[in-house]
């Protein structure tokens, strides 16, 4: 029964997303949606990838990483080098972008995740800045003036990558590995006492998150003719962090919803950057006032449907305390 329901949600989700894809693809190809919409949709998908990948690190594993734009940058530049300098195909560039970002994730994550406490926050913050400054000073990738990149990122590509990201992270979260990660978020000492190799899982989740951020970087780089170090500053990291916090720490659908919401808001406010910041802040304040644990709390959108039929045994999961 429960299994059927799970499978139902899974395939239901796939079918719904394929329908969305087809409809958008149709509207794009017959010109109903113009370039502005296409661009917004592409950014939306990229933002969803970023949000979901950071969700795995912060929301699921409970590791406070605040330099996600650093991985985006590493992926962007690595993939741009693959296509522009080495003239290799775009799919390979995406893959390499992800792998290089994951390796960077290992280099940052391994030393700081072995220790408890806030080392990761400090290390990732520093990493984000170091990456930006490094690209600023490397002439091979154009320094401050940036690097020219060809336009390869199309709606099918971003959509496909987004779907794969969500599926991989969803499956990971629901596996034994995912449960081990959640137990670390809940109580690292207790997780240790259960015999869970906490360092391994923290580093693994961090690397998977970095990988997908790197893929997002590849998509980002090949969307807009030029990439510059200034695209990847701390504010970018902060934007991604907001997706996750606003959506509700621990909720993948929450991260997706808030990525969509905020992408739309900032697209329509593009020409008024000051207003953008004000509206952004207002949205945040309102959500934190009325939904202090984020839009979705730790729940998933599927639980909204299955809720009513569920147990009479007093499982009021909405009331549970936060440990995060």
């Amino acid at each position: 029964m429960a299994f059927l329901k799970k499978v139902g949600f899974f395939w239901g989700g796939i079918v719904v997303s394929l329908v969305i894809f087809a409809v958008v693809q149709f509207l794009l190809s017959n010109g109903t949606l113009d370039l502005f919409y296409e661009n917004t949709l592409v950014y939306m998908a990229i933002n969803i990838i970023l949000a979901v990948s950071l969700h795995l690190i912060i929301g699921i594993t409970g590791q406070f990483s605040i330099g996600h734009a650093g991985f985006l940058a590493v992926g962007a530049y690595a993939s741009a080098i693959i296509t522009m300098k080495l003239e290799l195909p775009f799919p390979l560039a995406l893959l390499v972008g992800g792998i290089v970002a994951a390796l960077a994730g290992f280099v940052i994550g391994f030393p700081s995740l072995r220790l408890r406490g806030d080392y990761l926050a400090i290390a990732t913050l520093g990493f984000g800045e170091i990456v930006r400054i490094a690209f600023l000073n490397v002439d091979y990738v154009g320094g401050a003036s940036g690097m020219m990149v060809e336009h390869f990122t199309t709606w099918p590509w971003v959509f496909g990558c987004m779907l794969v990201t969500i599926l991989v992270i969803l499956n990971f979260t629901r596996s034994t590995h995912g449960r081990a990660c959640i137990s670390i978020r809940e109580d690292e000492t207790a997780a240790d006492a259960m015999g869970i190799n906490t360092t391994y899982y923290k580093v693994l989740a961090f690397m998977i998150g970095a990988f997908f951020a790197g893929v997002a970087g590849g998509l980002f780089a090949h969307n807009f003719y030029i990439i510059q170090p200034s695209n990847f500053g701390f504010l970018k990291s902060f934007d991604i962090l907001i997706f996750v916090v606003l959506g509700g720490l621990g909720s993948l659908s929450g991260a997706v919803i808030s990525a969509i919401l905020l992408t739309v808001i900032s697209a329509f406010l593009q020409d008024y950057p000051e207003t953008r910041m004000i509206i952004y802040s207002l949205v945040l304040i309102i959500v934190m006032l009325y939904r202090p644990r984020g839009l979705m709390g730790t729940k998933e959108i599927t639980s909204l449907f299955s809720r009513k039929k569920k147990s009479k045994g007093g499982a009021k999961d909405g009331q549970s305390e936060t440990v995060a």
Partner: protein
Amino acid sequence: MLSIEDVQVFYGNIRALEGVSLHVKQGEIVTLIGANGAGKSTLLKTVSGLLKPKKGRVLLEGKEIGGKAAQLIVKKGISHVPEGRRVFANMTVEENLQLGAYLRKDKEGLKQDYEKVYSLFPRLLERLKQQAGTLSGGEQQMLAMGRALMAKPRLLLLDEPSMGLAPLLVKTIFRIIEEINQAGTTILLVEQNAHLALSIAQRAYVMETGRIVLSGTSDELTSSDQVKMAYLGGH
């Protein structure tokens, strides 16, 4: 089964254990009592691999486990029910139990052990889908113990299972501890409630500021003036 030899443990520069020796024989319930801050929890954490001893040895059936990784020690058959229960609050009772069995691969044995835990703690079976954080204190203690039992330990380390529980529930928990022991699990029990602990244990150790100051059979300690004065509220 377990023998601890002259173990020293530090937190930074502070020495929390100043050379502790203790042993537990197969099938026993041994209790470790002592005032707050004596180092009881520190000792259990050292046995379960959450802390590393600076000096001394921890032997399980003659093999050194001191300083080994926690997951290795769980694999070797030691489970630790930490002080304050530390259940995974945002996970269900069932998921908590599954995590207890994290290192196990034997499907058949697992099934039996779920049944065993449910028969020891019928409350948990009623509440499988409930979030652990919403359980009462007593239920959380049961869950913490059930979770540890899912690893199928030969030696169970219990850190203050009676903490914050009503007297009646404490009795129940202690009865269950005896049941677990009779089913073949050796137990090392840290307790503030010296009365009850001495009543179910065969032997006991008394700890003060990082050392063992007294040890003997429960009967010996129950009648010792020093213990009466300090831990049994007696005269």
